[in-house]
């Protein structure tokens, strides 16, 4: 299988005038929903590193096509946002399938390594500010460049998530309560923007000297941009460092300082809580979606089965935020 993939990659890259021998093709631990491979191309005594990101052609209800992720990255790269350089895009009807190839970016994406390794000790204190800046840059993209992206108000999203939860026929008193609560919140009057949708450790590449690249755009959409700020403040993405509100490494004030240094729209700390609850509910429903792929038999995956038991993490986070003074 690896050998076949190597040949397919070689052919695809030849069209973009990257020619050479494909070596060291290896699968990486990626998200639960996409294949990620690393490989090198050897030519003229030189070796260049690349990453293949490949979808199955069957997206979950919230995800976009893998090839559309590539289109977004190409556009925001022109605006100065930090994203990997795309070298080839493949559509579903090609042999490679719904996929793209990008240049390898040096750094680390594994959250626990970034949070624990000595190497990143000096990076972490400024990372929240840099994430705020990076998110604000993404939000400055012209939404007219992305006609292929779904556009949803927050209340449409809440309703979609709720209906998805209902469809799994696994009633949750906490989710019912959350749904009622969310419908009554003010999420801020702000112009629609390109929302990354999953900006957090795991989906950013961090180097010794700071944020290097934003990856994994499969949940991108057009909507209220404050969603990205609430999402990275969810406890689900603190990886155990629960007292560091931003991604397990930073403080909300620093994230917003970074954001407000780039954005024309000023965001206050008190605008984030409703989005934190929204984000936690959203992650809970995504866990249900992932688990259902296993439960309905469409995929047999212990990884997806296990994620069904992470819904309770989002429930305890929500009751903590709503009733117990959680931040």
């Amino acid at each position: 299988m690896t050998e076949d993939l190597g040949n397919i990659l070689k052919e695809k890259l030849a069209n973009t005038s990257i020619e050479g021998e494909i070596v060291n093709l290896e699968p990486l631990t990626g998200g639960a929903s996409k294949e990620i491979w690393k490989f090198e191309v050897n030519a003229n005594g030189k070796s260049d590193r690349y990453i293949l990101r490949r979808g199955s052609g069957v997206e979950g209800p919230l995800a976009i096509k893998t090839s559309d992720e590539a289109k977004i990255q190409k556009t925001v790269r022109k605006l100065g946002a930090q994203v990997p350089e795309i070298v080839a895009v493949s559509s579903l009807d090609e042999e490679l399938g719904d996929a793209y190839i990008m240049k390898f970016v040096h750094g680390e994406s594994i959250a626990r390594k970034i949070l624990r390794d000595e190497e990143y000790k000096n990076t972490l204190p400024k990372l929240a500010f840099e994430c705020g800046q990076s998110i604000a840059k993404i939000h400055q993209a012209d939404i007219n460049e992305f006609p292929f992206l779904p556009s949803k108000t927050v209340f449409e999203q809440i309703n979609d998530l709720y209906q998805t939860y209902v469809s799994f026929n696994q009633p949750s008193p906490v989710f019912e309560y959350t749904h009622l609560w969310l419908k009554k919140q003010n999420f801020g009057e702000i112009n629609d923007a390109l929302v990354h949708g999953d900006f957090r450790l795991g989906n950013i590449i961090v180097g010794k000297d700071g944020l290097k690249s934003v990856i994994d755009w499969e949940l991108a959409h057009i909507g209220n941009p404050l969603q990205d700020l609430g999402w990275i403040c969810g406890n689900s993405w603190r990886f155990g460092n629960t007292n560091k509100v931003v991604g397990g490494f930073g403080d909300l004030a620093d994230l917003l300082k970074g954001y407000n240094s780039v954005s024309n729209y000023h965001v206050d700390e008190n605008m984030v809580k409703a989005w934190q609850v929204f984000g936690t509910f959203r992650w809970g429903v995504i866990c249900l979606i992932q688990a259902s792929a296993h439960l309905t038999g469409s995929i047999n995956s212990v990884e997806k089965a296990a994620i069904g038991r992470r819904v309770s993490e989002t429930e305890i986070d929500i009751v903590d935020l709503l009733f117990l003074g959680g931040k």
Partner: protein
Amino acid sequence: MIFDRPSSIELLKAVNHFLDDKIKSEVPAHLAFKLRIVENVLNIVIREIELGQELSEDVTKDLKELIELDAANIDDLASLIKAEKINIEDESLKNLLVKLSKNKIAVDNPNYSTFKKLVE
């Protein structure tokens, strides 16, 4: 139970030990990551067998008091909240939702940060 030892829990623990002791070092990195998930899954099953009944009854007892219905279950509570047939500002409802969430995570992932913070 008519079954001999090892008990179901003891069997699962033996499997987990085998995976950790003999298999983990033999598999490539991307499978080692999945192996950790497999071990976590087995641990969920072990905790559910050990604690599941008690944790469920603990919630059901409060639930019956709250909605004064003997046959009440979690699905009924979800329906009552959905239809707003229960006062959602009621402190005992909030307390029950907290207990329900704590008791579920106690089986699913007792190392989860929010749970550890709340039980400390």
